């Protein structure tokens, strides 16, 4: 069902319409095939970039779409309702542009951002390491200062779009301790950089997640973003925004599951009536609808705070927590609505349930979101 959205401007309405057209024609038509065969949708990100969907929340002067988060996130939600893996990769791309856009010098911004925001360069975000996920400060990958730049050595993990992206927001150590991490704009291809085999994941099959191995690759000085030692601060401020992207992905996924479940419940008959007319099942669907609406309302509230220049870190964590838990519950219940059929790969709800699980884990597990929220409360 088409979501009836409250949008701030006519141009936002046009943007959502464009997104729906592309999502229906280019995503919904290809998703099943690629998720099943675990193949990457070649050319799709170029198409999304050409349509202007990969730089939406950044300034127009730099080639972005000049859209508020309130609008950008609803675009992500629409994409996620057709293809979660693609929406996640778009959200991660936006996240990867963040350090350059917010912490880059004017020169760095002019040099890199136009290509990044037009989607001519697709980005990944490389913070996690095998031993440093929730505890990002425990990362070990080294950036050693040398003449004219840095030599990077160490292992990164869990990189969405790993091996395919054209650049990575890379976090590596220039000194010991929490203030010893720095942020770099790393190219996707460099001497001394290799990627591992894609992880065999529960879902999001069409976009690979890989490790990266740095063996003394050289990055010129100009690729340091912000000051040395500012990395963790950059990483966390980027994630505040990134989490909203994941909340929007989760909401889109939950919406898709609800739509499929309602359509099925209007068709399927037991005991002489449509299953939606059995109160027990109708109420399950009602709870699912409530879950989707709460997820959307919560991320939009955080987004509007961000757009208004208010603090939103706590609200972003609440949104990520609420929306991803809602997605898990709604997709699980969607399988329930389909009965035995829901447990087979014949129907999309089976995939939705697998895709929902990761939303509770990446860009800060939901335990970590609670940590952020409780720390705000303890202030």
């Amino acid at each position, binding site marked *: 069902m088409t979501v009836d959205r409250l949008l701030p401007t006519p*141009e936002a309405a*046009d*943007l959502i319409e*464009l997104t729906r*057209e*592309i999502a229906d024609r280019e995503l919904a038509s290809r998703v099943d095939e690629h998720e099943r065969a675990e193949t990457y949708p070649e050319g799709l990100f170029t*198409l999304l970039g*050409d*349509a*202007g*969907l990969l730089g*939406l929340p950044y300034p127009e002067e730099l080639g972005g*779409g000049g859209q508020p988060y309130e609008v950008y996130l609803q675009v992500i939600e629409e994409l996620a309702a057709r293809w979660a893996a693609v929406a996640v990769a778009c959200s991660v791309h936006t996240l990867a542009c963040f350090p350059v856009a917010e912490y880059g010098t004017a020169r760095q911004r002019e040099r890199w951002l136009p290509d990044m925001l037009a989607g001519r360069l697709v980005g990944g975000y490389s913070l996690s390491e095998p031993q440093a996920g929730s505890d990002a400060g425990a990362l070990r990958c080294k950036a050693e200062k040398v003449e004219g730049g840095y030599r990077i050595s160490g292992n990164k993990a869990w990189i969405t779009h790993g091996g395919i992206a054209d650049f990575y927001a890379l976090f590596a150590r220039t000194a010991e301790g929490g203030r010893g991490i720095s942020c770099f704009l790393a190219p996707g291809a460099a001497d001394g950089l290799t990627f591992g085999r894609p992880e065999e994941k529960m879902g999001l099959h069409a976009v690979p997640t890989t490790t990266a191995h740095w063996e003394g690759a050289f990055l010129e000085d100009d690729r340091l973003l912000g000051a040395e030692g500012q990395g963790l601060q950059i990483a966390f401020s980027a994630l505040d925004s990134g989490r909203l992207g994941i909340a929007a992905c989760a909401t889109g996924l939950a919406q898709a599951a609800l739509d499929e479940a309602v359509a099925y419940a209007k068709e399927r008959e037991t005991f002489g009536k449509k299953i939606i007319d059995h109160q027990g099942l109708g109420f399950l669907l009602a709870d699912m609808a409530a879950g989707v609406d709460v997820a959307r309302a919560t991320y939009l509230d955080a987004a509007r705070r961000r757009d208004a220049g208010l603090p939103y870190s706590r609200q972003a964590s609440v949104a990520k927590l609420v929306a991803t838990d809602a997605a898990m519950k709604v997709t699980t219940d969607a399988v329930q609505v389909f009965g035995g059929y829901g447990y087979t790969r014949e129907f999309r709800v089976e995939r939705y349930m697998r895709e929902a699980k990761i939303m509770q884990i990446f860009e800060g597990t939901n335990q970590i979101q609670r940590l952020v929220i409780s720390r705000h409360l303890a202030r």
Partner: protein
Amino acid sequence: MNIVVCVKQVPDTATERKLRSDDKTLDREAADGVVNELDEYAVEEALKLKEAHGGEVTVLTMGPGKATETIRKVLAMGADKAVHLSDDALHGSDALSTSYAMAQALKKIGFDLVVLGSESTDARTGVLAAMLAERLGVPQLTLANKVEVNGSAIAVQRLTDYGYDKVEASLPAVVSVVEKINEPRYPSFKGIMAAKKKPVETLGVADAEISADQVGLANAWSEVVDFAVAPPRAAGTVVKDEGDGGAKIAEFLASKKFV
């Protein structure tokens, strides 16, 4: 090169389409109006030609006020400006009078090349390109699968049942294109924003020097006498292959006079 691409707004083929009970013309209010899908290929080809040879692409649409949505979409894809031929007097025009009205508008706009889709998904006459060329006194190169312009020479591959014909002419000319010719682009978000500022000129019959007594329902050469809802499709015949499947299919096709 001054390229004019003719685009029609048609009811969405995905929705239910109806004729009006009063004058038996298409009910354009009942369905969502969309760009005639086959015209998107014409737009793409026009934009490609402009990108290769320079110049300007003008959209020409004949249709009611609502057709501005379609014009905006084509402008968002990259066309430079638009002419909207719109007048109550044009309502109910058949192919012959439509070609007359559009030819008058084209004379006023001026052109090196006119590009059209192969047909519209609502009326499906597929004759407009030929009629326009005739009325304008320029060569017609219809059903093109490939278009090449070289100075004032134009060459197309004209799709046929057996392959293609090579057709050459000199500009100005009228070309219609088939679906195989290209992959139409999506508008971009920036294109949508830019389209709002592009000029759209509205022409009435008087502005385009169209004689009102040659257009509209009353002056149409063809007349819709009656219409009925298409009967529901009958259930298909399933042929089970028990070694003789091929023969059974041949028999079936022969009984329907297909072979």
